[in-house]
């Protein structure tokens, strides 16, 4: 199938439909509240909303004023309020306060809450408790999928990571299942499904459950996507914790790409204002450098500038007619290219400036040592110094987590001293952060297993065997060992260095980490697709704590000639990094297949760490 030699990479399906569907449904919902209305939008929904609709569309549907949820409601004369929100208890209270305040002052209005992507029962309960149930109408905007690019679809649910992996809440699994159902109905049927992780398994099961009820209308249709691979983020934390060095990843780490666009500040634009830039395949310059290792980006950009200069220079010696042609046909394109080039050159400069200030080289060196498992003491003292100098709370945390995961936990002495110094450098309240990190298994102390076993056996005595099994499972998931070293050896994640690794002509996916490490998540996907299942990977699966599956739908016609056989939907539950995307794009090119990414959100190490920090309510 997919890997039978190098072939042309299939074109990705058109995901524009998803945007249209979401937009149309939103319009429909707005029309449900006819007449002029004020719209209150949740902050996290603004960027996604921007990508599918604009203010004029909202205005067309009689939205009068726009407000941000959580801001103090301005005294508004409008008779109708519409709230576009995520299903959160906090937000419900905010809305209830507005409604109750109106009631007190004898103001009567119509209120409508539109939940995206779905409504939660707990929210309704809060509305009921606050005495406003009945005063508001509720609706759901099933905006599960936002295509960020031609091959990336995001659910824009960054909270998925914390909710599932830290709190153990399964609230978003239904959303994932419904998203899969929608994709399956539009681009499927997916003939083969692979996956690893508890959440992957549950999402798959719930999705199948939904499909079973839907009368299999996709049967016999020619699919556009033939395979699907689901993976939990906790299968591979290591990759997400590494510093990114492919251009797109670096831009994300440095400037934060939000919903596919980035704000380049004055230091990049070399003017006094910021520019918002959409980063996707349409950007002719960006699309050529996004997947490249940072070291090759400079060369590319300067080559490109020279070409551009040459094209401008052709003007000289043109006669009037040629000049006219040039101006009308080429100049605009050249100007556009010029603008993009100068932006990306500016971004590179800014990245370089920031990174040299932070001893980026030293940090990368320490990371590579950790990945390889050499010079652990040196890396530990590097981290220690990082903390002592108060360099960056997030970076320090990230490095500690990387140390912990690669070493299967910190030795107690180190754990204690690093923790103490961290609390002294960045604030004692991070005690809570450490607790959270320990809970998810990102930053642990070695030999913590004993205490857990004690609790486990105590609980087990209380219950029947079957239930005890479940509990043991639950405990395992809490205290899961990373086993990184063993997995790395088994899968050959650290490439043997013979001579210099040519980052311009990469030979494997390790190029996304300067040739030092093949991302584990991507390696697993590669291996499973190659073997068309988990056969032969038993040991790896065991080290990854199981929960793997591989199912082919016998009802779906399996036609090897179909291009869809070479299109794989890679689903990352808990977030996916640009480095992983770059690595799989590379793999796709090598093997003549196309990866489509579905992720709960784009993530990176900083976002993961921030999700673990406790903020005031």
């Amino acid at each position: 199938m997919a890997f039978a030699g190098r072939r042309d990479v299939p074109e990705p399906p058109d995901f524009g439909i998803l945007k249209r569907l979401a937009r149309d449904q939103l319009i429909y919902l707005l029309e449900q509240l006819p007449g002029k209305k004020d719209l209150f939008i949740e902050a996290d929904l603004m960027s996604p909303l921007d990508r599918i609709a604009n203010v004029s569309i909202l205005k067309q549907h009689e939205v009068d004023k726009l407000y941000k949820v959580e801001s103090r409601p301005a005294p508004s004369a409008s008779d109708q309020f519409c709230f576009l929100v995520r299903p959160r208890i906090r937000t419900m209270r905010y809305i209830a306060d507005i409604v109750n305040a109106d009631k007190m002052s004898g103001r009567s209005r119509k209120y409508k809450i539109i939940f995206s992507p779905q409504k939660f029962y707990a929210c309704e309960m809060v509305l009921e408790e606050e005495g406003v149930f009945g005063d508001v109408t509720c609706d759901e905007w099933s905006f599960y999928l936002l295509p960020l690019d031609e091959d990336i679809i995001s659910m824009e649910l960054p909270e998925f990571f914390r909710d599932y992996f830290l709190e153990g809440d399964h609230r978003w699994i239904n959303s994932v299942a419904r998203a899969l159902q929608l994709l399956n109905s539009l681009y499927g049927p997916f003939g083969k499904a692979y996956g690893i992780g508890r959440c992957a398994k549950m999402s798959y099961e719930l999705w199948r459950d939904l499909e079973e009820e839907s009368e299999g209308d996709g049967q016999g249709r020619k699919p556009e996507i033939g395979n699907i691979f689901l993976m939990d983020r906790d299968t591979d934390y290591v990759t997400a914790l590494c510093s990114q060095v492919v251009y797109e990843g670096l831009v994300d780490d440095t400037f934060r790409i939000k919903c596919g666009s980035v704000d380049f500040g004055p230091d990049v634009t070399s003017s006094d204002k910021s520019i918002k830039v959409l980063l996707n395949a349409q950007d002719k310059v960006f699309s050529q450098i996004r997947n490249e290792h940072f070291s090759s980006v400079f060369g590319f950009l300067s080559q490109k500038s020279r070409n551009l200069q040459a094209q401008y220079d052709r003007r000289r010696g043109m006669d009037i007619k040629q000049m006219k042609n040039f101006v009308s046909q080429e100049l605009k394109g050249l100007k556009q290219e010029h603008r993009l080039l100068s932006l990306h050159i500016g971004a590179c400069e800014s990245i370089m400036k920031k990174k040299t200030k932070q001893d980026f080289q030293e940090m990368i060196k320490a990371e590579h040592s950790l990945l390889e498992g050499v010079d652990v003491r040196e890396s530990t003292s590097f981290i220690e110094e990082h903390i002592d100098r108060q360099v960056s709370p997030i970076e320090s945390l990230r490095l500690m987590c990387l140390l912990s995961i690669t070493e299967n936990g910190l030795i107690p002495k180190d754990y204690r001293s690093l923790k103490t110094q961290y609390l002294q450098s960045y604030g004692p309240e991070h005690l809570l952060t450490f607790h959270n990190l320990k809970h998810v298994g990102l930053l642990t102390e070695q030999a913590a297993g004993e205490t857990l076993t004690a609790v486990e056996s105590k609980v087990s005595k209380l219950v029947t065997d079957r239930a005890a099994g479940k509990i043991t499972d639950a405990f395992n998931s809490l205290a899961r060992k990373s086993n990184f070293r063993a997995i790395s050896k088994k899968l050959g994640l650290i490439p043997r260095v013979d001579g210099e690794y040519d980052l311009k002509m990469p030979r494997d996916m390790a190029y996304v980490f300067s040739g030092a490490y093949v991302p584990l998540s991507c390696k697993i996907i590669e291996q499973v697709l190659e073997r068309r299942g988990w056969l032969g990977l038993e040991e790896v699966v065991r080290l990854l704590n199981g929960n793997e599956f591989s199912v082919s739908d016998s009802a779906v016609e399996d036609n090897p000639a179909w291009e869809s056989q070479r299109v794989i939907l890679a689903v990352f539950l808990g977030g996916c990094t640009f480095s992983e995307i770059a690595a799989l794009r590379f793999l796709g090119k090598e093997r003549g297949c196309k990866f489509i990414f579905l992720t709960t959100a784009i993530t990176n190490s900083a976002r993961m760490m921030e999700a673990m920090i406790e903020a005031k309510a």
Partner: protein
Amino acid sequence: MSRARADEEEYWHSSKFRAFTFDDEDDELSQLKESKRAVNSLRDIVDDDDDDLERVSWSGEPVGSISWSIKETASSSTSSLEGRDSGLQKGSSSYAAFPKQVSSYSLSSLFKGELCLSLSALSDTGVKNYAPELRRPKAEYKDYSSDWSPKDTVRRMQRGKVCSLERFRSLQDKLVLLDEAVAGHDGNVITAVLIFLKRTLRREILFRELEVRQVALCHLIHFLKEAGEQKLLLDLLRFLDRTEEVALSQYREHLNIQDVEKRREFLKGCIGLPFSAEDTSHIQDHYTLLERQIIIEANDRHLETAGQSEVFRKYPRKASILNMPLVTTLFYSCFYHYTEAEVRMMWKKRRIPDKQYVLTALAARAKLRAWDDVDALFTTKNWLGYTKKKAPIGFHRVVEILQRNNAPVQVLQEYVRLVEDVETRLNLATKYKCHDVVIETYKDLKDRIQLTAYKCKVERGSAEEEKINSILNNMVRNASNPMEELSTCEAACLGVAASERRNCKTQSSANRATLLLLIA
């Protein structure tokens, strides 16, 4: 309850679906056929959108398919079925009556074409899920309130429909319902069931049952956290014997206390909480830190407004020190109060590792350009009375910090000279133009070539150039006489500013000692 129910029943009894009851549920073919007929029969009800009936939606589902039509029906029939837009099905007594919504029928019929199509594809609950109900209308609608099995209840809730949970009254029923919810993998439903259980069970009983249901337990804890039901959360955690979590959860509340005095009081109370021994000391530190900060803050605000202290006049405070980390507070103290012996003593006593102390004090004093303090920070005397420079952090770091604070070359080179690794020393010295250090290092290495090459980096006719020349000459004549070299070095040192002389002496006496060792 139950106007909605009655309405629904009425609907189902009058509808044409009634004819289709299937005994053999497994016969998919017959289901399909029947579904088709159902669709056809529905056309009579919904014949307002004739144009659209032939279309195919994005999901490949023909418009006018069951789900699509029923959606239309649901909104068109006055007795709104449980369409996702209507809150009517909340007939259960636990919910307040919900005002009937304006039927969407008239509106949706306004939107023909693509809009309708997309809606049929998107409206999750509307699309696919009516089929099972069609299949067994009789069985399921005969007695609405009591016929849903726990499994079906969970399924319906997963599809976004509200079901009455009131009839699950026995503990057994409640637990079966909970287990089904957990098996269904939908956290939203699990939480909904838990809210119901929480309302209808004594808490000890609920807690006891949750103890062996870890997944459900996580959901309840998360819900309580989000809903801010702190008291119940603490009770639950205590019941489970999760004492550390009890402590952390209480400690967490300090984040919400703005007033520092209240915060300090609160933290004092946290010291007695059942933390691990290690964490208890962190909490204790947190308390004493804030206590200290409150004192400093009051003191310094006074000093600042009085305008007597020079350092406060020259460097006005940018922010309050309250609630800052310990190291920041240390920096602050080193910046504003370094000379006060009492303050220094206090900091020395704390559990701050040497490294951290030195780094912070260095940064603070360097910022004030107090080079003597910097010097003192690294000077130790050994038992022979020799002074010696020592740093717990590596002198390359020291150089870096000094450089960032724009230290003059004379200061910088002193520390560059102390960098042990020759290569690093050369790099730093070259980078920061500490010519003397470069020259001396090459001399020590006896590297004529590099030394000659370096000549072009220094100013023509400068003291440095002269020095290079004289070294080069000496090297030819007396390369093997270490004492001779030493004197050259000393001579060179004389060129340095007078204030630095003392250190040069130190340096050269250290050199002398090394050389003596070498000779021996």
